[in-house]
């Protein structure tokens, strides 16, 4: 990459090529500005978390972190994370194997149904269960509800990995004396291991960030306690101090995933086509397997949706959804669309730099853009509050700040969407554009943009859905007197007005279920899915 372009006679094609190259090497200013803005957005909340936490002095912080109740919170968070992650892994792997590798009936239907719980916000799942059985509370309820809403995060990547599994390795293991089960454990599971770990990481991060569902089942985790300290105790320093622990836990989860993925690779060693394995015949296990899948979908999808429908039918008679549902929908759509636009716009320069001008700094910028994955919404919100209270009071509880929080929180989703599209757009085409006499801006508009448009759409959709169903940061940052679908639902739910709450949840599910369905179909297509 560091070779010097050979001198070319003036006016020749060679000179134009040489110019094209040097033009490509120079970092476009626009990209740098965008990436810098995004990086600042990610780092500012964390920095101000630290500033705010040591506001009342290190001694106070130490007392807070080492008191008994903090240890209880830590134990609660850890045992919940362990149980849920293991259960999600078991359910995700099992369901993925049945749908992708066995001859279970109705598998195409299940491949869609199994993903749909992703479209239902966790706190709506919690509402669904608790509203029909108020006795549900504490650790068992928290484990059950979170497992049922998060297992698709393991199912989705593992199913994609199993769909294109190379049959050769399993067969070789069989010919080397391993039984089918031994071969599955030693070889097949190893092949999909990165997908399993990636899914488990997402589950862990989701658990650490969750507030609403745990509040509903009265289970105390760090996030719940932080929210209570801040909103009810008005103790910003304590909230930020505990948030630091939460960030550390998330970072530990990230590190754990890296360590566990190990030095072995999952890619195939030889060139040439992969031969896809045939499906395993379940024989007499066929119908029991179908029943198991049906039970999983029934619990994860049927119960929450069923109870929503039940409460809507009940609620319509007493509490008609007033104009507030219209204004809440409008606010939700407005904030989410703005956040999705900003996040997608920031993802483009980040990906441009890291893919087209790859070096240590640009790779670091891209990694930093993934940092919010480990930052619970509550933490980003607290960091932004700390920042605005000190340096920009006019921003505090403004719509703008809420939109910025969404954009920061869901920037990783936007980067994922844009990156995959941009990585597939060959840079050679952009060079050809430059030879043909277009400037950088012109090339971006006429060549790059049309090529990455599907990725931009996916990024926008992902950020939009996530913002529309975000609860925790919204509760903290929303402008006074303004309600979104999530906050209005929350107000009704905490007042036990289930009938009034249900339509808001229904709208959120509609908003997110449709793109979630389209996304799962897109994933099938991208993974080269077979019927």
């Amino acid at each position: 990459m560091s070779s010097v372009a050979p001198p070319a006679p003036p006016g020749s094609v060679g000179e134009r090529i040489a110019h094209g190259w040097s033009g490509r090497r120079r970092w476009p200013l626009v990209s740098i500005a965008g990436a810098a803005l995004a990086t600042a957005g990610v780092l500012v909340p964390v920095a101000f978390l630290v500033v705010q936490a040591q506001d009342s002095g290190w001694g106070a912080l130490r007392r807070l972190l080492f008191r008994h109740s903090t240890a209880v919170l830590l134990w609660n968070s850890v045992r919940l994370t362990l149980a849920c992650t293991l259960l999600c892994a078991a359910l995700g792997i099992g369901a993925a194997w049945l749908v992708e590798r066995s001859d279970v009936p109705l598998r195409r239907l299940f491949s869609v149904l199994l993903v749909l719980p992703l479209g239902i916000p966790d706190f709506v799942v919690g509402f669904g269960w608790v509203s029909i059985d108020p006795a549900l509370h504490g650790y068992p309820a928290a484990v059950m509800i979170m497992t049922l809403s998060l297992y698709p995060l393991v199912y989705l990547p593992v199913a994609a990995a199993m769909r294109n599994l190379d049959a050769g390795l399993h067969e070789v293991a069989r010919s080397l004396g391993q039984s089918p089960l031994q071969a599955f454990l030693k070889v097949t599971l190893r092949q999909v291991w990165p997908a399993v770990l990636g899914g488990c990481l997402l589950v862990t991060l989701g658990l650490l960030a969750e507030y609403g569902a745990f509040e509903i089942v009265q289970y105390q985790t760090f996030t719940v306690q932080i929210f209570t300290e801040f909103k009810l105790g008005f103790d910003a320093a304590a909230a930020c101090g505990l948030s630091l622990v939460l960030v550390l836990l998330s970072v530990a989860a990230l590190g754990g995933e890296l360590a566990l993925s190990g030095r072995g690779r999952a890619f195939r060693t030889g060139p040439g086509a992969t031969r896809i394995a045939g499906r395993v015949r379940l024989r007499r296990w066929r119908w029991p397997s179908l029943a198991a899948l049906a039970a999983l979908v029934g619990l994860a999808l049927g119960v929450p949706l069923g109870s929503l429908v039940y409460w809507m039918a009940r609620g319509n008679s007493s509490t008609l959804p007033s104009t507030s549902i219209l204004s809440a929908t409008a606010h939700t759509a407005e904030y989410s669309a703005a956040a999705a636009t900003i996040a997608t716009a920031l993802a483009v320069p980040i990906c441009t730099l890291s893919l087209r001008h790859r070096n240590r700094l640009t790779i670091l910028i891209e990694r930093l853009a993934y940092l919010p994955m480990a930052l619970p919404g509550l933490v980003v919100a607290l960091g932004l509050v700390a920042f605005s209270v000190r340096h920009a009071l006019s921003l505090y509880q403004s719509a703008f700040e809420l939109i910025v929080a969404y954009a920061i929180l869901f920037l990783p989703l936007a980067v994922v969407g844009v990156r995959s599209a941009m990585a597939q757009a060959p840079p050679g085409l952009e060079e050809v554009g430059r030879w043909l006499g277009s400037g950088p801006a012109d090339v971006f508009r006429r060549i790059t943009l049309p090529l990455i448009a599907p990725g931009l759409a996916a990024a926008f959709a992902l950020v939009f859905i996530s913002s529309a169903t975000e609860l925790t940061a919204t509760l903290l940052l929303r402008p006074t007197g303004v309600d979104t679908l999530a906050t209005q639902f929350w107000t009704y739910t905490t007042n036990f007005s289930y009938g009034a709450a249900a339509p808001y949840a229904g709208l959120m599910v509609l908003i997110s279920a449709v793109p979630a369905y389209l996304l799962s179909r897109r994933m099938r297509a991208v993974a080269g899915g077979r019927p």
Partner: protein
Amino acid sequence: MSRLLVSGLWKGYGEQPVLRGVELDVPAGSLTSVLGLSGCGKTTLLRVIAGFERAERGEIDLGGQTLDDGRTYLPPERRSVGYVPQEGALFPHLTVEGNVGFGLSRSERRSDTVAELLEMVGISALAGRLPHELSGGEQQRVALARALARRPQALLLDEPFSALDATLRAHVREEVHSLLREQGVTTVLVTHDQEEALSLADSVAVLRDGEIVQQGTPAELYERPADERLARFLGAVNVLDATLLDGSAETPLGRLALRGGTAASRSGLVMLRPEQLDVRPAEGANGEKGLSGRVELCRYYGHDALLHIRADQPNGSELLLARVHGEGALPVGTRVLVSAHGAATAID
């Protein structure tokens, strides 16, 4: 050492039969090659022998033990059959050592067995590497050592050299061949490469449309193919009109000995390989016999050259292929006399 016997084997996917009564005899300790075009059922045959697929009808027998006869079926892990798939299929998460020792018991892994196997295939220095750090040839050797580790009675190789580039292929092929000779393991090598099958195998079986059309030594197949299609599949041929007599054939290139001759005189077709044709410049060939013609094309390969010769026939012209030594290559347009040596093979 065990003999592998496949008889009357049927296997299909859905309605489509892939193997239709395959008969294959792999003598103990021999290397038998199954040769066929892609899609002829070669890989399916190997997979049924290995036990990855079940036979519908027929029988597979290894050293007196029935592996599959359509009713009883021995799962792959209980067959003493080693398998080297295309591309090697090494476990990407295990080192070379881990791959080779995969099928061994814990105590065997701790003993010198793995080291000896690595030594045997000449990759001792790579024991700690991961598969993606190996070249294609090294990967093939690891796959082979892994398959031989359990001392299988039979070894199945599925196009093991096709992924290697041409120079490496010849080299690895030689090494594998001499290694298998040393080990004396009964081996089935599946390939679509005629040269590979003819040069490596003790016995070649040609699989076409799910049936073995002929099995024999390489020379038998090359010299006495069962039909014209098979003759052309194994190499270039000249097919000539001839009058067949008992033990000889009268051809445009003269009278030649006849293989598979008939007792009664009749007209028919005979086959001659290009290397059986002798070509001399017509100029200065005083009174020598031969079919006269003209060089129309000369493909020069260095060690030899293939001439396309347009013969002056009273009843029109015929294109003859002649393989000559490299120094015998003649410029296009040269007038030549063509004769033949060796025996002609009658074909139907």
